């Protein structure tokens, strides 16, 4: 069996497992699954930049928010129908990725992290500043007309799950192909040794810019999907924790693996869900998890599996 076939089978198996989970679990957990899949798309977008290209961004919430507001604001203010507004959301994420990338890629390492952090902070403050339109921290509810695609109302539990699953499946299969493609392998080469990749004649800066644009597009897609499926747009999704979460998910699940982001979101979702039932200070779990992960398992869960199964994408 070739590696490519194995990869596709693995991804199809993951998707089938999600369907089985949805059919067998009680409604509350099934609803959580939709949320987990949308957040996993966000994590996959982050992983493309962090796990595969080796660039650690601390400001990805701005791309998520760009998608969310790109979709939500056009639907809310201009009455644009769901699909074009959704496409605009993805475009907004990609465009922001391109602009931020063009500036931030002039720096590297720690400076790159701080620059992305600051751009995200500026984006968050901008959302607050235009509070008349964005309703700031309070946020707004997406009009119900903008949540109907092809005559199907996506606010229903089953419809929402189906839409989330289709989006997630597309993204998972596409990234599975992408990371095995020429571009994906070159990005990994940049992560492993940028100087050497440059010496081999690759334009590393251009490739990194492509990676950050794709990552922004995927994060924007996730943000737009979140607003589309759950009907709420708010500034808290642009704040610092939403830049830290994808890093945590990817680290926990396994950076540089295709299924790692889903695993990470899954675990962290239920960890936080359980913790917030016990205490107000549920973010404590996030802190402890980050410290323990960096100390003891920098490759994450999928990284540990990958040691046994080296063909894992």
């Amino acid at each position, binding site marked *: 069996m070739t590696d490519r076939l194995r990869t596709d089978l693995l991804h199809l198996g993951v998707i089938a497992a999600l369907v089985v989970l949805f059919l067998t679990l009680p409604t509350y957990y099934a609803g959580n699954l939709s949320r987990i899949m949308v957040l996993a798309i966000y994590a996959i977008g982050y992983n493309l930049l962090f796990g595969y290209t080796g660039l*650690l961004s*601390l400001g990805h919430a701005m791309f998520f928010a760009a998608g969310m507001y790109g979709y939500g604001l056009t639907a809310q203010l201009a009455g644009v129908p769901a699909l074009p507004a959704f496409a605009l959301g993805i475009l907004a994420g990609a465009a922001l990725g391109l602009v931020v990338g063009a*500036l*931030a890629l*002039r*720096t590297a*390492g*720690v*400076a790159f*992290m*701080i*620059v992305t952090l*600051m*751009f995200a*902070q*500026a984006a968050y*403050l*901008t959302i*607050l*500043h235009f509070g008349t339109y964005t309703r700031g921290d309070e946020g707004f509810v997406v009009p119900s007309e903008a949540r109907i695609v092809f005559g199907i109302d996506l606010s229903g539990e089953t419809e929402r799950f189906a839409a989330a699953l289709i989006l997630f499946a597309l993204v998972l299969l596409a990234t599975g192909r992408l990371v095995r493609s020429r571009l994906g392998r070159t990005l990994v080469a940049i992560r492993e040794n940028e100087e050497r990749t440059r010496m081999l004649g690759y334009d590393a800066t251009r490739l990194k810019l492509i990676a950050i644009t794709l990552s922004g597009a995927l994060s924007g897609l996730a943000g737009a999907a979140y607003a589309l499926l759950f009907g709420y747009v708010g500034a808290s999704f642009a704040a*610092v924790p939403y830049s*830290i979460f994808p*890093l945590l998910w990817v*680290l926990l699940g396994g950076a540089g693996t295709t299924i790692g982001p889903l695993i990470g979101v899954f675990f962290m979702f239920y960890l936080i869900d359980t913790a917030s039932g016990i*205490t*107000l*200070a*549920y*973010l*404590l779990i*996030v*802190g*402890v*998890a*980050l*410290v*323990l*992960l*960096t*100390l003891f398992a*920098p490759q994450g869960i999928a990284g540990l599996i990958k040691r046994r199964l080296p063909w894992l994408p």
Partner: protein
Amino acid sequence: MEFGPHLLLAVLEGLVTASILSLTAMGLSLVFGVMRVVNVAHGEAFMLGAVLAWWVTGLVAGHPAVGFVLAALTAPLIVGALAAASDRLVLKRLNYDPDRTIVATIGLLYIAQQTTLMTFGPDARPVEPPFNQRIALPWLERTEEGWTWFYPWGLSITSYKLFVIAAAAAILVAIWLVITRTRAGLLMRATQQDSETAQAFGIPVGTVYSVVFGIGAALAALGAVLVVPIQQAHYLMGGEPLLLSFIVVIIGGLGSLPGTVIAALLIGLSDGIISVFFSPTLAKIIATLLVAMVLVFRPQGLLGKAQT
């Protein structure tokens, strides 16, 4: 109030901000300079200092000054010890790898913040200043009888705020003397220049790192003890000083101590002046973007030297 007195007031308020900021940023700069790591949990050292100051002053009865002095002595010590311990337990095991250190200190940030939320609670709590006389300030103006002094309504500052400015200046001078004139400072500078060679010369680099990390956090805590009679203690108060300290350290040139002080004065004063005259959110957006641009186009900082 007219423009002149208004500006003087803004400058004085800005100086208070700048004083606190220079202490906090100095801590961050020292850690970055010597250890080459970015401590994202630095703001939480500030927050812990403020919360501990509230706790210590609550333990002591009698004149508020007694509690304040006790807080100024103990809070930085406790925070410094906590930071040194986390250096030993976490950062040292990561070999100070820059990326992983940032992730780990984000974790420490949440641990400190959320533990405070669980114990101290979500409310903001005030600390009584040790002394707080209102001092009216005179203003010179030309009237029909020539130049005269008068006291415009609202142009005043408290004695405590003046004390904050003086105390911060004294502490900065003390740090400068320690770094340039003492053996401990020499060890720090040697480690900063070349940690491997320093190690080869028998300098306990690991201990120097832990001590510097502790001192950095203690400086933030000291700044917080000074500010807490003006601004209340709250478990989320670490975010703003962290961001401002980042800005200061970047503008001043990463790891350059004189640059840090100058940048703190610049940012503190302009923050005071800008927030008096403009919308604070818009000012923050512009400031944040400007600093990001400095980092993009002049990574060595405005005052730092280009690295060869």
